[in-house]
């Protein structure tokens, strides 16, 4: 049973991953990503020359922030397009479970992002030529980045399972991610400490930026937050996909 699920996940992951690299969009997104990140890294390098500490904070923050815009674009196709073209009919009548379809597709997208992240390791490598950066700090921030992207992509997969229209899926996940990024700023206007506390815990900013990037530490609640949101989003995506069977 476990072996079977692992095999199914691998089959779907492999298919989705190779579909990404067979289309020009992923190269375009990748190019755009590295352009932005490269600019921010150059600015950091300039500030190092003026005596600022040698860190990856700004560069990794930028890579994290870009998830809001890029993750919806990477994931909008995943399930929507199958519904629109009808290929989901064969996928849903193949001996794979709905959750395997959802998780396999999510892993495919996460795989693409992992390739981006691995390529971006060139930046910390450059830092080592400029001096001796704190390797632990950088590793922690990268783990945060990777988890944040996993979460953003899971939300994108969920949105894609909600509608056969890619553009609607894009807008839904973009809105959700902006909401999660800005929740604290919005709820700061409400002078209730409990609500502010909840909003702060729900915000990507406090788990990624404030903790894993700037303080260079990983707390249990950070892991619970990212993994929890991933699990909830993928669970809902599986259920949305399941309701297609009833509404078909």
């Amino acid at each position: 049973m476990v072996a079977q699920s692992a095999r199914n996940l691998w089959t779907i992951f492999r298919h989705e991953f190779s579909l990404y690299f067979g289309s020009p969009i992923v190269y375009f997104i990748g190019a755009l990503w590295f352009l932005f990140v490269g600019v921010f890294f150059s600015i950091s390098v300039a500030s190092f020359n003026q005596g600022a500490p040698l860190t990856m904070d700004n560069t990794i923050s930028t890579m994290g922030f870009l998830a809001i815009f890029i993750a919806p674009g990477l994931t909008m196709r995943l399930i929507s397009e199958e519904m629109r073209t009808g290929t989901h009919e064969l996928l849903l009548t193949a001996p794979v479970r709905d959750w395997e379809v959802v998780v396999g597709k999510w892993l495919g997208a996460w795989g693409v992002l992992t390739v981006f992240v691995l390529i971006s390791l060139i930046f910390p490598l450059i830092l080592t030529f400029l001096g001796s950066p704190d390797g632990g700090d950088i590793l922690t921030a990268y783990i945060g980045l990777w988890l944040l992207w996993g979460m953003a992509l899971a939300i994108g997969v969920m949105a894609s399972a909600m509608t056969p229209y890619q553009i609607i899926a894009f807008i839904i996940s973009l809105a959700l991610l902006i909401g999660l990024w800005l929740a604290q700023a919005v709820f700061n206007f409400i002078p209730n400490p409990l609500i502010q506390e909840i909003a702060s815990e729900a915000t990507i900013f406090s788990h990624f930026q404030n903790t894993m990037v700037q303080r260079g530490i990983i707390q249990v609640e950070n892991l619970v937050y990212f993994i929890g949101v991933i699990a909830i989003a993928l669970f809902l995506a599986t259920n949305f996909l399941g309701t297609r069977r009833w509404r078909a």
Partner: protein
Amino acid sequence: MIQVEGLTKYYLGDQPAISNLSFYADRGEIVGFLGPNGAGKTTTMRILTGYMPASAGKAIVAGYDVMRQSIEVRQRVGYLPETVPLYKDITVWQYLDYMAGLHGMTNPDRTDRVEEVLDQVDMLDRADSLVANISKGMRQRVGLAQAIVHNPDVLILDEPMVGLDPDQRREVRELIQNLGEARTVMLSSHDLAEVEKVCTRVLVINRGRIVAEDSPEALANNMQGMQRFYVRVDNDAAGKLKELVMSVEGVAEAKVDDRKGGLEVIATRDSNARPAVAALIVSNNLDLLELRPLDMSLEDIFLQLTAEAEAELADEDEWDDLDDDEFDDLAEDLDEDEETK
């Protein structure tokens, strides 16, 4: 191999898409599912392949319950949906390799098997073509290839002949017949000639109900009670021929032949419809040019069966719609009719 009992499916609304369907299909049978568009063929097939659940009833496919053991069923069923859905951005080979992988096949068997089915559907030379770049007939064959790539016990094919030219139809027909020797094949169609050529047994479905079930030959025999003939007159300017013919006792249907301008008439065999039509034409001062018997085709049988089923349903509906008073009135009228007879 396929055992269906009381299968019913409601979408939104009160009208069921299929209602209380029961049928079976054994190994070695090629069962044709025949009916007009919207009859419930695709709905039934989607339930049998585990795509969606039924509202009521039971279906056993390859020994497993489609509702409770969906994965086991899906491992043993090959399915070709109506509009062959293919991923367009990958090659024919990649597509089949993916479908084989989804059915749990691993290398090196998977590679061998993909090559084998590509050979079977005569697509080996196009294995490296992008799916987007192959013709409709080829896509149909690739669709068929994905349905058989995991060597399923049961094949469910929704309109497998649609969009093929006559040569391709013959090839696909032969392929289905070969596949059907050791498997259970169920195929849907609204093309009677195809079903007649390839199927060992036919289920005729209309408005979600099975209206007939038999071998193609036996269905024709059942209809021996009916006769079909062709009638043509010269000076029917007023176009009253059809009306006249329909008024003759025993005539079930009269259809205008667009090409030659006459009427195709179906009547009960024991009625004296032919001489009666002739007499009526003469007595109405029309010039009778032609009156000759025609063979009953499966097409006619089909039209007849679905018309009968619809008439039955209409009767039921009529009775259902009545309120109590109207019901009593109608019942009284019927009693009076009986007495006067």
